[in-house]
């Protein structure tokens, strides 16, 4: 029989860990990347019934068995229905509803149309077709749920990744009608879903999405489920614009973006290829580049830096914007993902003001590219690099080592090369640059963060109000509803500092 020591040894044997698979790191990175992209969209409230194909479908893990059973009843009832029309409205701060989109479900096929009647998405049999406004085509890819769409998928709006969903149930009476209300909250997200279902049939007849703003729940989206209207989904041949495959779309984008190399650095161990540099109307500089298969090591900024000769102060949004492949398979180009740096001037720059833009990288003694600099170092080496010709380097002492700083791109601009953002930007980050409104939100957010970090409270107030203004504009134009909670909290902070 075992003594305690033998027990411990046996336990170690029983609980020995297998070798970590080589792909573990990539799997983590991919999951984090998905989460990052999702968190951007979560700032936009997910209006479930309008986001049919993009929604990760219904994994419900509710702590309450009763609630789970009851919600299961709703799901079961929905799954017996094959046809429905679901109208989704955005709700503004005054409570006014504006129709955003209509989803029609018929025998497992789904078509979603916007307010202008344009089909924005079609899921038909084994394929999905998604409208791509920048290309003016529908992009076809294999359907994520090839077995067909179920109406119950519509009430599984939040991420399947979360283990923290919670549902509360209650019976309510309104106008003499008693119905069941399920209120679903997903972890700490400042949003909740309220589904009202018929007590007899268990069929949901409406759903409201609410966001928590300054401690109060506010309706942001509202959906009506109509099971009596005739529901028919036209086949793809009836789409009014050309259809291309996801691969064709990716190939087009790849060949477009890789057709130019505006500047590069390579030392056998590391390389950077500058693919695009564009200047927007407000002076924001968009840089697309490739840098091999680096995945996560630039979360805190990267050594690719921009400086100009007129002393513009840029706030840099350093992040990896990966190739946008819709819901198609991820594919890594030969020279690595397309990455983007966006340098937003903290004050708008007149686009006709002549300025020389310089991009540089820093290389450590081991040949690796620098990835993180403190602000003062960053500024100094960028200035230093701007003074040497392209292809040349300057030495720069960092802590206990000496880096080489290479200038890899210099060009004089005296006008903008695009509107709010270049069209390729949405190909790298659709969620940030899909349209001008999203782009303006992005820029205002960047400026407000910068102003807050400088403790320039007056400027922060201006920029935060700009963020709110563009978020409201997004709702007005029917693009998306945004959670304003964090912006309002930041405004509170600003007001306390401005008027203590």
């Amino acid at each position, binding site marked *: *029989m*075992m*003594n*305690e020591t*033998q*027990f*411990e040894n*046996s*336990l*170690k*044997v*029983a*609980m*020995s*860990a*297998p070798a*970590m*698979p080589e792909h*573990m*790191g990539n*799997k*983590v*990175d*991919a*999951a*984090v990347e*998905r*989460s*990052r992209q999702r*968190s951007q969209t979560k700032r936009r409230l997910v209006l479930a019934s309008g986001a049919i194909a993009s929604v990760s479908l219904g994994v419900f*893990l509710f702590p309450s068995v009763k609630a789970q059973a009851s919600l299961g009843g709703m799901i079961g009832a929905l799954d017996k229905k094959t046809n429905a029309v679901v109208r989704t409205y955005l709700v503004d701060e005054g409570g006014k509803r504006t129709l955003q989109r209509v989803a029609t479900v018929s025998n497992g096929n789904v078509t979603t149309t916007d307010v202008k009647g344009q089909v924005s998405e079609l899921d038909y049999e084994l394929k999905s077709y998604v409208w791509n406004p920048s290309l003016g085509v529908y992009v076809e890819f294999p359907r994520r749920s090839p077995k067909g769409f179920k109406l119950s998928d519509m009430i599984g709006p939040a991420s399947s*990744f979360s*283990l923290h969903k919670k549902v509360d149930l209650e019976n309510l009476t309104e106008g003499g009608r008693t119905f069941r209300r399920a209120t679903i909250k997903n972890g700490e997200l400042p949003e909740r879903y309220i589904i009202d279902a018929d007590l007899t049939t268990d069929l949901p007849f409406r759903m409201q999405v609410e966001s928590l703003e300054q401690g109060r729940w506010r309706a942001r989206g509202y959906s009506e489920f109509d099971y009596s209207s005739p529901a028919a989904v036209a086949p793809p041949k009836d789409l009014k614009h050309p259809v291309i495959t996801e691969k064709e779309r990716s190939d087009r984008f790849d060949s477009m973006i890789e057709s130019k190399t505006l500047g590069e650095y390579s030392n056998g161990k590391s390389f950077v290829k500058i693919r695009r540099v564009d200047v927007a109307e407000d002076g924001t500089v968009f840089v697309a580049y490739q840098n091999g298969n680096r995945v*996560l*090591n*630039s*979360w*805190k*900024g990267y050594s690719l830096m921009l400086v100009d000769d007129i*002393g*513009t*102060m*840029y*706030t*840099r*949004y*350093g*992040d990896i914007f990966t190739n946008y492949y819709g819901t198609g398979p991820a594919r890594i180009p030969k020279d690595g993902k397309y990455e983007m740096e966006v340098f937003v001037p903290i004050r708008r720059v007149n686009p006709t003001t002549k300025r020389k833009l310089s991009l540089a990288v820093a290389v450590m003694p081991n040949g690796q590219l620098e990835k*993180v*600099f*403190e*602000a003062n170092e*960053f*500024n*100094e080496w*960028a*200035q230093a690099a701007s003074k040497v010709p392209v292809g040349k380097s300057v030495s720069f002492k960092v802590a206990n080592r000496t880096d080489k700083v290479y200038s890899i791109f210099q060009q004089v601009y005296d006008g903008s090369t695009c509107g709010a953002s270049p069209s390729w930007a949405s190909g790298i980050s659709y969620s940030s640059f899909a349209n001008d409104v999203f782009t303006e939100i992005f820029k205002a957010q960047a400026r407000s*963060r*910068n102003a807050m*970090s400088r403790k320039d409270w007056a400027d922060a107030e201006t920029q935060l109000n700009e963020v709110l203004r563009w978020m409201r504009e997004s709702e007005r134009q029917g693009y998306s509803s945004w959670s304003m909670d964090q912006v309002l909290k930041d405004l509170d902070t600003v007001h306390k500092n401005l008027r203590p």
Partner: protein
Amino acid sequence: MTKQPLEAAVLHNSSRTMTFAEARSAYLGTVFAFVARRIRPVQEAEDVVAAVFVDAYQHWGRRKGDPKLWLLGIARRKVADALRKKKPTWSIREEDSTSNAMDEYVARAEADHAAAIVAALPPDERDALLMQVVDEMPIQDIAVVLGRSIKATNSLLGRARTRIRQQLKDVK
């Protein structure tokens, strides 16, 4: 000289020294081992590890203390969540059995027995014991991961060991 504030990826609290990417590189193996010892098959463990880092990424700015222990705290909760969804099995994996020799057989039987004893412990006691014996963590680290004081963690371990001694004695 022009000031150019670097606030890249301010979603993450830049005032703290370790970046998420650095923590991911430094502790991926630790977290994987922690999870893979408790969740099988390994494919499920991989999913849990990915979930740990997603959670960590989302809350990086709010973390407290040692990043490694903070990550292990998340891992512990994710493991508990995952085990709640299925009945835990603590037997040795098939691939651990490499021969039919009697020694192997005895080792496996003892390992299964040890695992069964641990599986019967209350969850907190089991977690504390596994961290001490299998993960070889010091008590102060176990206390951080469990969110308890060192004294309370010692008590927990004491109770776990008392139960185990009783179990081993009963078998005798």
